[in-house]
């Protein structure tokens, strides 16, 4: 285990508002980009998910305090995401590569 932190981290109100405001702005950006900027697929999805990932990082790191917390909790979150990705990617190996049998008569 990592060394114990007796002082719980306390964010300042300014920090929290800064994170919140960034999240609001990112929400507006993602809507504007999706609705008014023509990005060829699949990069439109990539853009939307990237913005969502940045937002998720901000929430996890600063609202959920992972940035100052013991590293094990962050590791748990990362592990959950890794297992989710494994689940989806291996399932896609089946669903995307199925062999179409066509009867000849």
């Amino acid at each position, binding site marked *: 285990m990592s060394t*114990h932190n*007796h*002082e*719980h981290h*306390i*964010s300042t*109100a300014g920090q*929290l*508002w800064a*994170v*919140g405001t960034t*999240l*609001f702005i990112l*929400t*507006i950006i*993602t*809507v504007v980009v*999706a*609705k008014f900027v023509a990005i060829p*697929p699949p990069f*439109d*999805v990539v853009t*939307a*998910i990237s*913005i*969502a990932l940045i*937002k*998720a990082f901000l*929430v*996890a790191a*600063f*609202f*959920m305090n992972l940035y100052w*917390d*013991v590293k*094990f*909790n962050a590791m*748990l*979150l990362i*592990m*959950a*995401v890794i*297992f*989710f990705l494994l*689940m*989806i990617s291996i*399932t*896609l190996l089946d*669903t*995307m590569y199925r062999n179409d049998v066509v009867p000849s008569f």
Partner: protein
Amino acid sequence: MANHSTSHPTHVHHHFVDSDQQFDTAKLGMWVFLVNEILFFGGLFCAYIIYRAWYPELFQMAALELNTFWGAVNTVVLIGSSLTVAMAIRSAQKDQMKGLKINLLITIGLALVFMVIKGFEYAHKFELGIFPGEYYTYEGIDHPQAAIFFSIYYMLTGVHAVHVLIGIGLIYWIYLRAKKGEFSSEYYTPVEITGLYWHLVDLIWIFLFPLLYLIE
């Protein structure tokens, strides 16, 4: 903050050595539970991704039925509620009991706004005949799997809405305990772990919004 005297404060259960150990344990437990929540939603996201990969054209057609404006408003509302929960924890840490209670109430208010908007969205779809599953009667989307898109939509947003409702209940319970004066800068574990849960509900929505509403 935490003192290491041998006396047990009242909020520390008998099997813990001290308040810090109890706090860390509760937080770890909550994170482990959140891992489970992520994989719970992960199953639904998996269904979403597979069907989107199979029928990309369906998702483009069907997403037009969803109202991006209200989706975006709900995103802002939920992020706002995450911010107030974070502020509530900060108030507890700084022994500002009034701030704690006010922030919790604002959070509940925002969560209710989210649910009301969601309710209007559902009502509008029901009017069109967009019901889940077999009850789907809408004819505006010309695709054999159209009903499945909305099944996935209702499952994702429905399960998320159930989490919001549970969250409202939990935050109200925390509010009642705060009113009784149970929390202080020495002991605010329930506030912290309920906050973690609420942030996760927000996190899920951060992904649901672009995946459902922002397909062009």
